[in-house]
C-alpha cells in the first residue's frame, strides 16, 4: 500500500519529464510552448494529488459530509492555471513576431540566419 501510494507521484514525474524533454529537444518554438504546457499541467496534478484525502469529498460544506479534501492546493492551482494561459499567450505572440521577422520558427534556422546577417 505504501509503495502504491507513491506510484501516483512517480507517474506525475514521468509526465513532467516528458514535457521537459519536449522543451529542451524540440527546435520548433510552438512545440516548445506545447511542451511547457504539458509540464505545467503535470505540476498542477502534483499539487492536487497532495491535497487529496482518501474517502474525502470536494470542499463544499454539507451536513452529510465529514471529511473534506484540502482546499488550499485547489486555490493555488486555480491561480496558476490562469497565469499559465497568460504566459502562453505572450509566448505565442512572440513566436508570431519571430516568424514574421525570420520566416521560420525553427530555433537552429533562426540562429543560422542571425549568424549570416547579424
Amino acid at each position, binding site marked *: 500500500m505504501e509503495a502504491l501510494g507513491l506510484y501516483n507521484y512517480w507517474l506525475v514525474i514521468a509526465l513532467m519529464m516528458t514535457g521537459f524533454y519536449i522543451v529542451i529537444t524540440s527546435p520548433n518554438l510552438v512545440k516548445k510552448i506545447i511542451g511547457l504546457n504539458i509540464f505545467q499541467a503535470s505540476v498542477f496534478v502534483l499539487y*492536487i494529488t497532495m491535497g487529496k484525502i482518501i474517502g474525502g469529498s470536494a470542499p463544499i460544506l454539507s451536513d452529510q459530509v465529514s471529511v473534506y479534501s484540502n482546499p488550499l492546493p485547489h486555490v493555488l492551482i486555480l491561480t496558476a492555471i490562469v497565469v499559465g494561459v497568460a504566459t502562453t499567450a505572450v509566448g505565442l505572440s512572440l513566436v508570431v513576431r519571430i516568424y514574421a521577422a525570420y520566416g521560420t520558427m525553427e530555433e537552429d534556422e533562426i540562429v543560422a540566419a542571425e549568424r549570416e546577417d547579424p
Partner: protein
Amino acid sequence: MIEVLIDEAVLGLMLIIAVGVLYQRNLFAAAMLTSIYSLLAAALFVVMDAVDVAFTEASVGAGISIILALGALALTCGEQKARPVFALGPFLLVLLTGAVLIYGTSDMPAYGDASAPIHRHVAPRYLEDSRGEVGPPNVVTSVLASYRGYDTLGETVVIFTAGVGVLALLGRRRRKAAKPAEEEA
C-alpha cells in the same frame, strides 16, 4: 482503493498522449493532443475532489490555451521540420532529473493519507470557520476571494500585463500588414 486505480489509469493515458505529442510532427495535431491531455487532467481533478480546478482546467487549459495555439499556428506554419526525436544528451539529463525527483518523493506521505502535514495546518481552520467568517458553502471560493484575496488581485495584474504585452507585440504588426491580423487575447 478504486480511486487510486482510476487515478493511475488516467495518468497512464496522459503519459501515452504526452509521448504522442513528442512524436507528432504536425503541430495542429500536437495542439489537439495537448487539449486532450488537459481534458484528462480535468477528469483526474474531479476524481481528486478538486471540482473548481477541473472546471477551470477544462475551460481554460483545454479550451482557451489551445485556441491561442491554433491561432498562432494559423499565423505561422503548421508543420515541424523532420528531425530525429531521440537525442542522447537531453535524454540523460531528463533521466537524471527524474531520478532525483523520484528520490525526493521517497519521504513524501502516501497518496490520500489524512494525517499528512499538509492537512494539519491552515486547511482545518478554513474548513471549520469559513462558513461563519466569509459565508459561501464552497470553501475554495471563500479562500480565493477572501483569505487569499491578494493572490487573486496579483493574478488579475498578471493577466492585465500579459494582455498589454500581447497587444504591444501584435498590434504593431496589424498596422503594417495590409490585411488585419488576428486578435490574440
